[in-house]
Every structure is written in C-alpha cells, then in structure tokens.
C-alpha cells in the first residue's frame, strides 16, 4: 500500500536527483525542478502575504470593525494605493511616495540598530577586555587574559584600518593609487590576516552547512529506497 510518506519520499528523491544532475551542467531535469520550485515558492509567498498579513491586519479590521479605532488604517491604505498607481508608467512618481516612506523608516531602523545594537556594545566589549579584574581566569593565570585583550585590540584596529577608503596622498609610483596612507597601509596588512582568518572560519561553516544538507538528502533518499525495496 502506498503511504503519504512514500509519495513525498518519491517526490523528494526525484527532485534531489534532478537538482544534483547539475553536477554535469545545466540540463532539462535541473531546469524542470528549478521552475517547479520557482512557481511553487512564488505561489506560497503570495498565499502567505494575502492570508497572513493583508487579510488579518488590513482587510479584516476594515470590514469587521470600521470606525474610529481603525482610522490609522488610512495611512497604509493610501500608501498601498499610491504604490499600485506607481505601476502606471505615467504616474510612476506617485509610486515613489510609499517607497520614500519605506526608505526613511528602514534607514532609521538601520542607524539605530548599527549604533545602539552593534557599535556601542562591541566597543564596550573591547574595553572590558582590558579590565584587570577580568584577567585572572579559572586556572589562575592572568597572562592569557592580557594577551587576549591586546590581540583583540590589535585585531579590531587592524581590521578597521584595512577598510580605510582614502588613498595615499603622495603618489610616487603607479601602485600608490591603490595604497592607503602609510599607517593604515601597515595596519591593514595585519588586518588582512585577521580578515582572512575570519573568512576562513566562515568558509568552514558554509561547507559544514552545505555538507550536512547533502548528508540529510542522502539519508532521505536511502530511507526511501530502503522503504521501496523493503516493500513497506
């Protein structure tokens, strides 16, 4: 008897093979799977937006409980209308009003997050690493704490220096066009090592994640084949 698991197992098996076939280059099967995926994802996203955002937060309140409490709804309704009107080529400038609204709002959230959520806490961490009280660790050593603090400061400063945009002011050779001012250039060299170390660790993480995804696919396929051969 064909169970639900077997059907989805078969679908998963076929789709996985179709996508893995990309290893020999683009082919009909890969494209077929890719386009099924695109269509289905778009359809689901549409359902999500309509059913889980627009209907409960916009349509329902307006239908079920119109009046004073819903006055604020004028704002999103007007903005959405402008966005739709903006799709008409002659009225495209109207579409820029809601977009400017979103741009301003997103920019502000980004500024706040960047300063209060990253800049300040990370600077505080560097400072606290230099607190002598925190140097002595469980094993009674103080030097690891000191080394850690110094390396942390050097790492952060040199990495920041690597990203310095400005170029060397005195141009003696053509290569100087791509060089930073001396101090940033020398610190940047050191920064390169730290950046390389970070990217290397992230690369390892990316591979680990991708590898695990492949392993899980193989398990699913193995289970499906086992189920098929086992007749269950």
């Amino acid at each position, binding site marked *: 008897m064909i169970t639900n698991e077997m059907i989805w197992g078969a679908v998963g098996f076929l789709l996985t093979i179709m996508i893995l076939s990309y290893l020999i280059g683009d082919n009909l099967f890969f494209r077929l799977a890719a386009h099924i995926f695109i269509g289905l994802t778009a359809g689901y996203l549409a359902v999500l937006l309509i059913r889980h955002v627009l209907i409960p937060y916009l349509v329902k309140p307006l239908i079920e409980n119109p009046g004073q409490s819903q006055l604020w709804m004028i704002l999103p309704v007007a903005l959405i209308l402008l966005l739709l009107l903006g799709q008409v080529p002659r009225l495209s400038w109207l579409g820029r009003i809601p977009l400017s609204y979103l741009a*301003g709002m997103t920019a502000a959230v980004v500024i706040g997050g960047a300063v209060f959520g990253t800049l300040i806490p990370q600077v505080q961490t560097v400072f606290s690493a230099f607190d002598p009280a925190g140097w002595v660790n469980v094993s009674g050593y103080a030097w690891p704490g000191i080394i850690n603090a110094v390396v942390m400061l050097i790492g952060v400063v040199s990495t920041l220096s690597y990203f310095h945009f400005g170029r060397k002011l005195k141009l003696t050779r053509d290569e100087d066009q791509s060089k930073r001012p001396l101090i940033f250039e020398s610190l940047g060299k050191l920064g390169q090592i730290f950046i390389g*170390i970070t990217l290397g660790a992230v690369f390892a993480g990316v591979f680990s994640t*991708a590898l695990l995804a492949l392993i899980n696919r193989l398990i699913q396929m193995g289970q499906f084949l086992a189920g098929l051969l086992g007749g269950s």
Partner: protein
Amino acid sequence: MKKVLIPMIALLVGLVTLAGYFLPTQLGPTLTIIIGAGILLMSAAGLIGIGYLLHMHIMKLVHKERGGFFSLIVLLFFLVALIAGLVLPPGSAFYRDLILGVQIPIEAALLGVLAVVLLVASLKLIRTRGWTPLSIGFLSSALLSFVFDLGLLHAEPGTLSAELLDFLRGLPWLGARGIILGMALGGLIVGLRVLFMIDRPYGEE
C-alpha cells in the same frame, strides 16, 4: 513640488522612527502605526513583485520565446500553490507537505551541489589568490576550523594547552568584530545618506 515632497516624507518618517530609540514611551503608539503601515506596504510590494514574475513568464509564453515551456511550469505550479493555499484551511498538513516536500529536497540538494562546488573551489584557492596574508590567513583558519570542528583537538580545562586552544578558537572572532564594526559604520553612513536625500532609493530624480 514632488522633488521636495518625496524626500521630505523619507526624512520625516526616518526622524520619527529614529527618535523612537530615544523616546520609546512617548512615541510608542505613533511608531506602531508607522511601522504597521510599513509592514503592510512591504507585503503589497511583495505581491507586486510576484506579479512581475508572473508577467515575465506570461510574456515569455505570449511571445513564444525560448524556454516558454518552463514558464508554463512556473505558472502551473504557482496556481497550484496559490489555489491550494487559499482553499485549504490554515495549518493543513497536506499543504505543508506539498510546499516543504518540494522546497526542502530542492533547496537542500542545491546546497549539496554547493558543497561539491566548494570542494572544487578550495582546490584553486591559492591558484586564484596566490600566497598573500589574506589567503594564508584564510587557508590556515579554514584548516584549523575543520580540525576543531571534528573535535580532534581538545585539552583538559585549566591546562596551558586548553588556554592555547581557546585562544586559537577565538581568533576568527577578532576579525569578525572588526568587520562588524566596519559594517555598523557603513550602515550608519548609508542610513544618514538616505535620510539626507543624498541617496534616493525611491527615484532617480
């Protein structure tokens, strides 16, 4: 007029939102309305995007362009997901299996292909980059991370080697902190540029 109006809206909304970090209680209700409207707007924009995707594929079919068959597939599966999603009750197990039954195998298999491509890429790391501080740091760190990942290197807590291993494990975080701080600076500047109307994502005027 519109040249002034449009940027002013961005500035006004931006300043009120930014002030929310400073005066959260006073601006609370106003901000909820502003943010709520923004979220609804983004949903509408998302739908317009999907409309653009459909339009693109419909036109491919209309003009009988190359790959029209695949456009048909896209439209077909779009309709399946849309109709099923609107007809079936929320939280339907069948709908969940329908979507995830396709999404998980395809996305995971794509990541599987990525794993293989990463293997190929790792072969040409030095060939592409040469022996530079960046590539040396990258290579050594990647190798070390894999070794740590497999748990091949470990020491008794409190020992010197344990301290050394912890130090090495923490090295990538130092560069990460520098990059994160840099990103925060960049984020701050880009945000201000948008508020100051230097950059206008809402139009090229």
